[in-house]
């Protein structure tokens, strides 16, 4: 959502430049200042600190001010790290695929099947209602539903669909993916819906006139024209899932690992430089992913 802040701050600055074309007008700098301060204090400085700390040595009680590469050597030399990163990327990939499927068809329904903007916006707001509660509460609320004696098992047992409670429902990879999908689908719906609302309806008619059936229209017209929304949604979902540790620890029941949990564990053992090194590696991986997505999709089209 920082993109909206970004453009809002950038536009007045551009306007000021136009009124005084010569040199660098003071007004433009002043207008850019608040955003620059916010990003500087809350983003740039912490990341610099993170990178600095990741190269520092430490013992069991304190950080030592000497430059070392051992944090990275240990992290990259450990099979556990690689496995944890692999599992986290797997979660991200599965969650991405499911949220993309759901997000695409929910958006399609809202944008093309629902008649009238009132209904469209109304239903869209309904989608966002769960976001009035926090991520953690929404995750925890799955426990009574999915537990051994939870609602799902009780109902299935009651109707004799199953004879033993299903144990994979909670504290499992299934539970983790379910929570991720639940938490993140709206981040896919919003940008794709936005893209689809910009598709000229006569294009759908033109496709039909040219002999395209439903799936051909989806594949040849709707999907390519929703690409930007899909790209933005993908960035949201992947960055949120890659950095998560709460959902994995609640839904995995302490049995599952993720990069977030690994970093959290290192911090709880006061191994800040090791945690920082893993965080920098995670950041690098996520940035590479975002870079690759931006290579495929020009998200500036939507801004």
């Amino acid at each position, binding site marked *: 959502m920082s993109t909206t802040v970004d453009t809002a701050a950038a536009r007045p600055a551009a306007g000021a430049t136009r009124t005084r074309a010569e040199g660098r007008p003071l007004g433009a700098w002043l207008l850019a200042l608040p955003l620059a301060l916010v990003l500087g204090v809350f983003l740039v400085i912490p990341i610099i600190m993170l990178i600095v700390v990741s190269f520092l040595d430490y013992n069991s009680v304190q950080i030592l001010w000497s430059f070392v590469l051992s944090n990275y050597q240990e992290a990259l030399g450990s099979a556990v790290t690689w496995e944890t990163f692999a599992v986290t990327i797997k979660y991200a990939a599965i969650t991405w695929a499911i949220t993309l499927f759901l997000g695409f068809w929910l958006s399609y329904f809202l944008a093309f099947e629902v008649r009238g903007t009132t209904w469209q916006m109304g239903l869209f707001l309904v989608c966002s209602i769960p976001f009035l509660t926090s991520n953690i509460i929404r995750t925890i609320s799955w426990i009574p539903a999915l537990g051994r004696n939870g609602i799902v098992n009780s109902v299935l047992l009651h109707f004799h669909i199953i004879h033993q409670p299903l144990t994979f429902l909670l504290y499992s990879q299934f539970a983790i993916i379910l929570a991720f999908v639940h938490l993140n689908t709206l981040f896919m719906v919003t940008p794709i819906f936005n893209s689809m609302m910009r598709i000229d309806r*006569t294009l759908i008619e*033109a496709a039909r*006139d*040219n002999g*395209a059936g439903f799936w051909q229209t989806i594949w040849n017209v709707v999907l390519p024209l929703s690409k930007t929304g899909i790209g933005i949604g993908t960035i949201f979902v992947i960055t949120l899932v890659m950095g998560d540790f709460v959902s994995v620890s609640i839904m995995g029941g302490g049995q599952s690992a993720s990069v977030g949990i690994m970093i959290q564990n290192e911090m709880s053992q006061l191994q800040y430089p090791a945690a920082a090194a893993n965080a920098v590696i995670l950041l690098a991986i996520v940035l590479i992913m975002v870079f690759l997505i931006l290579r495929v999709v020009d998200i500036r089209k939507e801004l």
Partner: protein
Amino acid sequence: MHPALDVELISVTKRYGSTAAVENISLRIPRGTYCCLLGPSGCGKTSTLRMIAGHETISEGDIIINGVNVSDLPPVKRGTAMMFQSYALFPHLNCIDNVAFGLKMRGVGKAERRARAGELLSMVQMEKYAERLPAQLSGGQQQRVALARALITRPKVLLLDEPLSALDPFLRGAMREELKRLQRELGISFIHVTHSQEEALALADLVVVMDHGVIVQSGAPREVFDTPATAFIARFMGGHNVITNGHGAFAVRADRCRIAPPTANEGLPGSICSIEYLGAVVKVGIATEAGGQIVALLPDDQFFAAPLMMGAPARLVWAPQDAHPVAA
């Protein structure tokens, strides 16, 4: 079913809720006809076109295209192709892929469909722009691409929704000639929706004037212009004076009217209230004694041989054979 017809509408009605956009219209369009559906906005001409195209369901009646009742068929099975008012080019595809789209949907291989699309692009003189995206083209160029895209599936009937309205006047004239040339060369029927009577007269073999969801007159352009059936048509076609006297209403072409001195014992008395020099003709307005304004278009040489003065009393006269009775 008539073998020599491309399109036949039989008592076609389109209702939206309780209001009828098109009411019980019947029309026969012979083979290879340039047909213009003409009328003011909201007259039902676009709904009619969209029903022929299959983008709008028919509430009642039937549409026969090339001897087949297509009323319940999807657009692709009708042998029609539509050119949309906004052109509706796919913004993510370049010109050649836009034109080839219909063939791709029919499963034609890439090399073959691109070759065909190339031919059609050269037919509309756009082959140089094959790799451009629609956003990189001017309105006139986009229209040519849209035309090529509509023609690639070899339709029997081409449907054009206000094709010239988005162009500037110079391009409009050039494109108009081009549409007529294409229609003649392809030998298929064009059905062209327009609100410009000038466009309809210049292009059509068959002018169909619509108003309030019904066809008020259809015929050859000269017939519709020379003998408008109603006062509405006379006013809509322009260039006519609609005059009511004791026997009813009649229409006289303004260019057949002359200005006579106030002493003449025929015509309508009044005083000259406007003089506009239009180049080849001079448009003289007369405020009649009965109220209202009538117009004479005088050849410039005739006008300047005996210039008229603003406010001068005068009479508008015409030959009796030029007055055509019209229904009110």
